[in-house]
């Protein structure tokens, strides 16, 4: 048994790697058509991703919010809930967190957890309305969450320009007041340096990394160790079987939706509390949508999402490298990410069927 199981494992892990390789191959072909030799393309990617400690650690820095985004989407997907609203949830979550960071006066050891919890609450709040509409009225969450993304953008824009604007702060873009120093996220770089991993000063490996690690573990524990997680996965596998087994499906979907929203609220932590120290409408957009791709590639599992978010960060950085050193436009990276998802999904499906056939043979 052990042996056969590891045989399947190898196949299962091999399939996403094949997908990545296939998409890199396509990238090289496209670059050649544009007029860049594969060697030069690969070199450009290498220089911007793996060539130095600075580049390498930047990938992990970029991966932190992507990981949280992927995790948020994955939790919902596990319960068969399509939370397309992670985008709006992190805008609102980030703002609520920032408010706690600006207006509450607390000692550091309280202020930091409070802003994290406030961000989660904000994200959950923004998820709660579509979640209620889904379980109470049966309105599909894809529609409501997409609309709520737009509403969130407009609401946040209004608040930052109006009631919550930090008048008097010198800035070209509308922003809030500065977050108090007690709530700012410091860097962990010296920790890494202490254990011999070189992380240059300018790279943001900040407290949000701790949050990401804790959340990753909590989600894993929820899904694979808690009864509630068992029910989430059961509902995601079959609504009918879950109902038959007495699982309270609506409650489970509500839980997963709110958990997803809470995690979404954390996506902005790094940018707001570590990088900018202020909330602005200009915080990076689109991470919620990246999260969908990351969750898919990571097979909706926390461990898978670690790999896929790092992979995504790698490709993001590779895109800048291409932009800088070759004639290949940065935007090509979006094409490649898309292809990667396609390849991985297809290859994954093929191997899953193959494994299923093998298992059946074994059981027969």
């Amino acid at each position, binding site marked *: *048994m052990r042996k*056969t*199981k590891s045989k399947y494992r190898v196949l299962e892990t091999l399939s996403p790697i094949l997908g990545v390789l296939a998409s890199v191959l396509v990238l090289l072909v496209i670059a050649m058509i544009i007029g860049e030799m594969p060697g030069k393309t690969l070199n450009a990617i290498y220089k911007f991703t793996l060539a130095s400690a600075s580049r390498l650690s930047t990938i992990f820095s970029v991966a932190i919010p992507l990981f949280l985004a992927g995790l948020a989407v994955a939790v919902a997907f596990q319960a068969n809930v399509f939370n397309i609203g992670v985008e709006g949830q992190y805008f609102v979550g980030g703002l609520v967190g920032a408010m706690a960071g600006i207006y509450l006066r607390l000692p550091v050891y309280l202020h930091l957890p409070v802003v994290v919890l406030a961000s989660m609450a904000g994200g959950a709040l923004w998820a709660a309305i579509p979640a209620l509409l889904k379980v109470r009225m049966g309105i599909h969450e894809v529609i409501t969450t997409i609309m709520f993304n737009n509403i969130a953008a407009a609401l946040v824009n209004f608040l930052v320009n109006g009631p919550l604007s930090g008048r008097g702060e010198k800035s070209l873009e509308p922003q809030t007041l500065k977050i108090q120093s007690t709530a700012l996220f410091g860097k962990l770089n010296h920790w890494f340096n202490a254990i011999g991993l070189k992380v240059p000063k300018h790279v943001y490996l900040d407290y949000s990394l701790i949050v990401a690690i804790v959340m990753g573990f909590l989600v894993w524990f929820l899904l694979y*160790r*808690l*009864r*509630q997680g*068992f*029910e989430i*996965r*059961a509902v995601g*596998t*079959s609504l*009918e*079987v879950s*109902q*038959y*087994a*007495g*699982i*309270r499906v609506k409650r489970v979907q509500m839980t997963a939706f709110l958990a997803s929203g809470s995690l979404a609220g954390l996506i902005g932590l790094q940018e707001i509390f570590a990088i900018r120290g202020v909330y602005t409408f200009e915080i990076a957009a689109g991470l919620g949508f990246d999260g969908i791709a990351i969750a898919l590639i990571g097979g909706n599992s926390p461990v898978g999402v670690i790999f896929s978010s790092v992979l995504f960060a790698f490709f993001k950085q590779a895109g800048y490298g291409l932009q800088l050193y070759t004639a290949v436009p940065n935007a090509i990276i979006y094409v490649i990410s898309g292809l990667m998802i396609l390849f991985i999904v297809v290859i994954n499906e093929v191997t899953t069927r193959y494994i*299923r056939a093998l*298992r*059946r043979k*074994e*059981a*027969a």
Partner: protein
Amino acid sequence: MTLLKMDGITKVFPGVRANDQVTFDLAPGEIHALVGENGAGKTTLMKILYGLYRPDSGTIRLRDQAVAIKNPRDAIARGIGMVHQHFMLVPPFSVLENIILGKESQTAGVLRLEEPAREITEIMNRNGLPVDLTARVEDLPVGLQQRVEILKVLYRGAEVLVFDEPTAVLTPQEVVELFKTFRMMRDQGKGLIFISHKLDEVLDIADRITVIRRGQVVKTLLRAEASKPLIAELMVGKPVFLHVDKPPAAPGAVILEVRGLRQRSPRGHLVLEDLSLEVRAGEIYGLAGVEGNGQSELVRAITEAVRLESGDVLLEEQSILAWDVRTRRDRGIGHIPEDRHRYGLLLPFSLAENLVLGRHHRSPFVRGSVVDFARMRAYARESIEKYDIRTPSELTPAHALSGGNQQKLIVAREMRFDPILLVASQPTRGVDVGATEFIYQQLVEARSRGKAVLLVSADLDEVLSLSDRIGVIFKGRIIREFRQEEATKEQVGLCMTGEKRSA
């Protein structure tokens, strides 16, 4: 000349011979009825004809020419049309759009509508099938939607038309209209295959009747030689009692009481009509009936919260109507569902997880909220041993098991939860003989342990062999109850067709 001849058709699925040397023919201008219990092999035969399955052996001849039907498209091209029980229509499309869908004609990319509309109108007039071509399908009553289905088939030039239980969804008036159309089509020389459970209708409309049982043709009768008792007998066959060792019944207190249940389908038909029954501790109550007479609705009313017009369901004298599934399970209702793949198993989950499903929220499988996987696996190993589930390990996913073992898994789960009432719905459907016998033993075992067992099955032999009392359900009510000793297969079989008096 024959229009269609299927000869020696055999189709084997793992563990089941769905069709075994089936021979079936159809003349032009004939309505040929195909009858048999559920699972007898009618649908398989028709799926072979329509190109959905390939037969393992046997030949199909159309107008005396041997053909190999590769897929439904091929079947349609050869003039075979199928009117499915569940309509294949696009609800927001108009009638015209639905009919031409898949056979659209166009001029430079623009859809041509007038010409097909004329042609379809002509078909409507010839066959007595008037429908407003501009109406949206979702606005039409079921009877008219069915007409659209028939028109679709006729528009594609079908000569052989298969009707899979077309009357199941119709009102009596709509059935009269449908049969008028049947006769008009017959008079134009088309061949009709009519699948139905309703013997009155079969006798009303068919020219010939073929009875299938357990994958084999029992007999093909001319209308003149057929009668209701004869067909009923052929359908259920000579009594073949599987050997079941059953100690005498010692019924105790009433466990389940169903009182005057009344329920309407979403379409407004009465599906349960003042249905009442009682099941006692230590008793197997068998529900016999032709499928679709309210069995599923009754089971749902017992196992989950549904909307009822009136009536009550009591478990140990306590009304359970307000309880959700979890409460019902917690209070001791076990349920073997009729469709194990759809309801019974989380197929990608391990055997161990499936074995605790429904009780996974309770001790000993969780401590607080944390799942105790070690306990779960130990429990699973015990169950595998005790219920002889053939599997490489307790961590094997459920989809890797054979049908019989999947069903044993479900039976093991529900039995080990130690319910006071066990509802077993089609417990041996699609299960091999070995597993069937084992499941029978388990049901008898449940009875010996003082549980109330409600057995719902389309297999009359099964009901008769196992049950202490038998209730016959017809059109949503129990029309007669038998004690096992007084029940004969002929009597119960006839009763299932709605005849209360014994023949």
